[in-house]
């Protein structure tokens, strides 16, 4: 049975989505459990796959029994093996953690919500596991469509923000599709590794160059790299909290994975990193993203919006690290995909917990939260320290690799941007600590007397806290085991020729 793991990862959640939708009409409480079982199987299979990869290096699965250039094949290697496990774990933990707030926010829409949730996971995991360039587009659209719908059900201006996301997302995905079309014209194939074997003969053709530029533009829009980030802050701010703690960790990070996959496995480093000038200009683009993202984050007055801008800066870390085009930089980028996904999950889960108890997430509402919700805020501290980059949390180690890469490449602008962004993050998060720890709960001047009850302990329910604690512990564990992760997995994910 274990040879079918690549199919199980995707197909079990897909089939579960139909069951969930049907259960939504019959008995709503079942929806959650079906989703949990499906995602657990998916998580288990991706673990199994990673173990197989550690043993055999590459696992290939032929759908319909047709071999690659003619049929669709899944190909799991070190790079996507680890990303798969992380995405599956995030999807599962978030599902458990948000059970209560889904019940609160989507009373009558639980069935469709969980169906969309599971379909989103299907799409995202499919993007990671597939070895076919066109299949990736279809899965990308599944993940995007469900994402639009989940975001559209949020508060305030969610529908408008989601519609803008539809426009940007569709342009991005269409550009990707067009780029694949150019590659198809040049090579006649759609399988990533088949394309890679044909491309070296036609590297000088400008069709390939155009395919490269168009694909990359599409992916940059999809991953919200500055200046194509405009859809992200609104969409993430207004979206419902159980959905955003799924979408925020996965969408942009998976798109960075796709960029790495396309550039390393399809175009191969000898084409992608051919010209130093191009590499450097992409790093400078990332530097701008980091700096602008950090500065914009400083000017925000609510938690989720601030975190969205922090994420835009983080995208800059990964893109910049990758385009440093050396071993340390790419290791840092891949490591940061994993770490950033975990960190984002942690802080957005906390934001969800806060919104579960407090009416809004603007900074005024955070006053006195350390007394009211000590456990959630404890996890927030861990997540924040990780984003800042304090050892032994995982954020420190990926940043370390990125900085080492920057120094090795002689790109001191990138190093400076990383340090600047860390400083800004210190300011950002310590401001929140200060508000949460020192300022009393509620506004003294308006309410007159402080309500005794509101001061007391009122953390989120246990069902939401336990997964959050696991995530927070995971951040530290990821940090401690970074070395194992790099030597056992990530260093094999980077192809030979890169020093």
């Amino acid at each position: 049975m274990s040879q079918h793991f690549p199919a199980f990862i995707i197909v079990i959640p897909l089939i579960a989505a139909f069951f969930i939708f049907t259960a939504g009409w019959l008995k709503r409480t079942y929806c959650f459990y079906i989703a949990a079982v499906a995602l657990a199987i998916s998580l288990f299979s991706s673990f199994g796959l990673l173990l197989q990869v550690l043993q055999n290096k590459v696992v290939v699965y032929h759908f319909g029994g047709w071999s690659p250039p003619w049929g669709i094949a899944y190909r799991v290697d070190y790079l996507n093996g680890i990303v798969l496990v992380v995405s599956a774990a995030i999807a599962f933990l978030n599902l458990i953690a948000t059970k209560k707030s889904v019940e609160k926010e989507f009373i009558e829409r639980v069935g469709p919500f969980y169906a969309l949730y599971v379909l989103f996971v299907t799409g995202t995991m499919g993007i990671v596991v597939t070895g076919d360039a066109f299949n990736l587009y279809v899965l990308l659209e599944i993940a995007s469509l469900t994402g639009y719908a989940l975001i559209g059900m949020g508060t305030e201006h969610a529908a408008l923000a989601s519609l803008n996301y539809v426009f940007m997302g569709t342009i991005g995905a269409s550009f990707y599709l067009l780029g694949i079309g150019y590659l198809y014209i040049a090579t006649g194939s759609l399988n990533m590794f088949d394309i890679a074997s044909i491309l070296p003969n036609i590297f000088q053709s400008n069709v390939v160059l155009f395919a490269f530029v168009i694909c990359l533009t599409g992916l940059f829009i999809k991953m919200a790299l500055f200046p194509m980030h405009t859809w992200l802050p609104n969409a993430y701010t207004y979206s419902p909290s159980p959905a955003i703690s799924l979408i925020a960790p996965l969408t942009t990070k998976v798109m960075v994975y796709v960029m790495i996959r396309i550039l390393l496995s399809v175009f191969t480093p000898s084409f992608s990193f051919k010209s130093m000038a191009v590499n450097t200009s992409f790093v400078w683009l990332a530097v701008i993203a980091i700096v602008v993202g950090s500065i914009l984050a400083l000017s925000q007055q609510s938690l989720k919006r601030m975190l969205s801008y922090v994420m835009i800066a983080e995208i800059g870390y990964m893109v910049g690290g990758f385009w440093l085009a050396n071993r340390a930089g790419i290791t840092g980028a891949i490591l940061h995909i994993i770490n950033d996904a975990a960190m984002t999950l942690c802080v957005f889960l906390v934001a969800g917990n806060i919104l579960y108890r407090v009416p809004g997430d603007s900074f005024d509402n955070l006053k006195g939260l350390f007394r009211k919700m000590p456990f959630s805020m404890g996890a927030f501290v861990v997540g924040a320290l990780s984003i800042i980059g304090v050892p032994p949390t995982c954020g420190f180690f990926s940043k370390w690799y990125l900085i080492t890469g920057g120094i090795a490449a002689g790109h001191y602008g990138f190093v400076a941007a990383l340090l600047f962004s860390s400083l800004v993050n210190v300011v950002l998060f310590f401001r929140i600590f200060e508000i949460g720890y020192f300022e009393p709960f509620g506004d003294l001047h308006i309410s007159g007397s402080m309500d005794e009850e509101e001061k007391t302990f009122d953390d989120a329910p246990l069902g939401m806290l336990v997964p959050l604690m696991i995530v927070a512990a995971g951040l530290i564990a990821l940090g401690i085991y970074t070395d194992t992760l790099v030597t056992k997995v990530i260093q094999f994910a980077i192809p030979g020729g890169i020093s």
Partner: protein
Amino acid sequence: MVDLLTIIISKYNYWGYIVLMMIGLYAMIVKKNLVKKIIGMSIFQTAIIFFYVSIGMKKNATIPIISHGHDGGEHAVHAVDFINPLPHVLMLTAIVVSVATLGVALALAIKVYQQYNSLEEDEIDSQIKVK
């Protein structure tokens, strides 16, 4: 001059898709009405579908359905006689994707209209600013 003419003759089909795509992109950038933007998005996606379909074309070839009969028996099939089926298959998928995107976009537009009573971006922006 002759070179340019051959280029035009052998590539004009691709230029058609580019013009369409740019019309869609222009609508999405410039128009302020959300439904017009959605229409632009649809044109944009359709242009890419045309692009793929025109890749599939092959001179002096027919549609990819092999002629067969109960009594005619099998005869050898040559790839040059039939156009490339793969882009058509891919575009069936892309058409469905674009229909699905259109459906979700329209649903969101209806939600926006219910909330702001308008589909003009300017009016919506002024409403947001007032609040």
